């Protein structure tokens, strides 16, 4: 299994210190480390979530041996989903100070590709589709969680928004 490599932000507390010093020298302007909340991101996530879940619920209900289950029957839906994610990725990449959200969408693209590759190989049983669906929904939830925090940044509540199971 591959390991996850992030930028190691937790070990780089000197970075905010430098930013503070530069800001002070630069006339006490405010600091921006993260892009601001974008309603369009939320709309794109909602749209993708709806299309994705529609497909997965449909696939869950089809018997894995039935001809309607074949990849070819759903290829256009997968293409539409890929396009939606490409557009989302393009928009998130274009924003300044938005690396975490942009990378989250890139991860989601990889997850969708795994699903497509699996479906091309064989019709997946309902249990496997169910796990894939939960994984994709978790990833979408993580994108929304971060986006919501961009909107209402209250330091003490950041990590616990929606953390309760």
């Amino acid at each position: 299994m591959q390991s996850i490599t992030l930028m190691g932000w937790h070990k780089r507390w000197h970075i905010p210190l430098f930013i503070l010093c530069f800001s002070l020298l630069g006339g006490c302007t405010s600091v921006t480390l993260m892009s601001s909340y974008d309603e369009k991101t939320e709309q794109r996530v909602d749209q993708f979530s709806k299309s994705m879940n529609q497909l997965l619920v449909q696939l869950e209900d089809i018997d894995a041996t039935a001809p309607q289950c074949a990849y070819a029957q759903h290829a256009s839906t997968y293409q539409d989903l890929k396009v939606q994610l490409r557009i989302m990725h393009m928009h998130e990449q274009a924003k300044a100070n938005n690396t975490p959200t942009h990378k989250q969408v890139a991860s989601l693209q990889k997850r969708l590709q795994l699903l497509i590759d699996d479906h091309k190989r064989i019709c997946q049983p309902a249990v496997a589709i169910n796990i894939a669906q939960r994984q994709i929904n978790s990833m979408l939830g993580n994108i929304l969680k971060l986006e919501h925090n961009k909107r209402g940044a209250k330091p003490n509540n950041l990590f616990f928004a929606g953390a309760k199971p």
Partner: protein
Amino acid sequence: MKFDKKAMRANMRTATRTALGEQWSEVREYFEAENRKLIETLKMIALLHTSGKIDDLTAKSLLEGQVLVRESLLLAVEGMTLIMVETTLNAALDSIRKAVNTALKFPLL
């Protein structure tokens, strides 16, 4: 296959705590909930594979999917940390601005 969830949860807690350092106390509740979900999913993948309901490639793909979920979670935490640092820095800058302007009795900053 025996799945020791308790030991797995403890190992994951230690690994996460070590990786996150000082941040751990702030994200503990969040990660503990996510770790429980992760263990449940891994257990399910293992059981489905062992019982022959999914093949090797599907099991591998679902595991890779789980890594991507984790990556997405860590990126959310990274972003939320940046927002927290930004909010704290701006509050500090604002207090400096107010203090300087008050001391000088005119809005220099």
